[in-house]
């Protein structure tokens, strides 16, 4: 087995996350799919750090985690605010800017 298998796995997880973003209607599940894509990118970073033999990849993965955590906090607050005004967590509901 080659460590590049980790990168293949990360590509697979990223694609599943993409499908989730495109297919699901619930804003929270869409958000989870985005998290999955970020995690897949992290796995690729960690695997590449190992292949190249320096820790920079791991540091970048660490920063991605920090940014993802703050993104989740703000995103979920936005979802809550939209839910309060529209009583729905569906991403098809907010369409005021459609036309």
């Amino acid at each position, binding site marked *: 087995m080659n460590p590049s298998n980790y990168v293949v*796995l990360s590509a697979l997880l990223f694609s*599943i996350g993409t499908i989730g973003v495109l297919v699901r209607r619930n804003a929270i599940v869409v958000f989870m799919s985005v998290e999955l894509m970020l995690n897949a990118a992290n796995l690729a970073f960690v695997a590449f750090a190992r292949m190249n033999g320096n820790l920079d990849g791991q540091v970048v993965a660490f920063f991605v985690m920090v940014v993802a955590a703050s993104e989740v906090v703000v995103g979920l607050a936005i*979802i809550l605010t939209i839910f309060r005004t529209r009583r729905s967590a569906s991403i098809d509901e907010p369409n005021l800017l459609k036309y």
Partner: protein
Amino acid sequence: MTDTAVNTGEAVVFWICSVLAVAGALGMVLSRKAVHSALWIALTMINLAILYVANSAPFLGMVQVIVYTGAVMMLFLFVLMVVGVDSSDSLIETIKGQRLAALILGIGLAGLLVWGIANGLTETSTVGLDAANAADGGNVEGIAHLIFTKYLLAFELTSALLITAAMGAMVLAHREHWTSKATQKDLSVERFHRDEHPGNLPNPGVYARHNAVDTPALLPDGTPLEESIPAPVRARSDARPVDHADVREVHEITEGKGE
């Protein structure tokens, strides 16, 4: 473990954890209910943490467990509780054929990425992190060395980002009270204005023989009081009629006239 190759133990760990991670990701996309999705993706994240540790990144593995499965997923579950646990996805497509197109494009993307990476990385040699981890005396020390020298500015900026995110979430989730909250006095006044029975309703009849909620209490003149029976029992008209012979008998017993 040698630097370049992956030994058998790690291969076993990889195949178990990667299968579980992909299963969790697929379960997240496929399950109808959002809570099930959250639990599936928690499975994926735990397996990714194990894979990080296998990739000689023990610090990131622990951070993954603490930050993602610990904090982020719990936040997701809290928001799901607020939004409503049973808010499952509607199956109506707002754009015709969107689901099928998304599925085809997603599978195409997966094929393209996996095929390209699998072909592109077959010849690469792996240096391994043993030397880099040993240089500063450990994985955590190595990462700390990098963060506080080479990436110091980025690290400082993340603190600003975290503070901004926390403030933003507080501002977004905060609800302003435009009117003052009702005090106990206001509530009491309102209750008496509502033209209903202001206090507790009388208890149902408790006699020696019929100690049951379906038996009405008796007013001083001996007529049954319908309000003393709980409303559901009244609605089903399950109320038991008062047996006046019983009442008389109980009365006689308490007066000491009976047997």
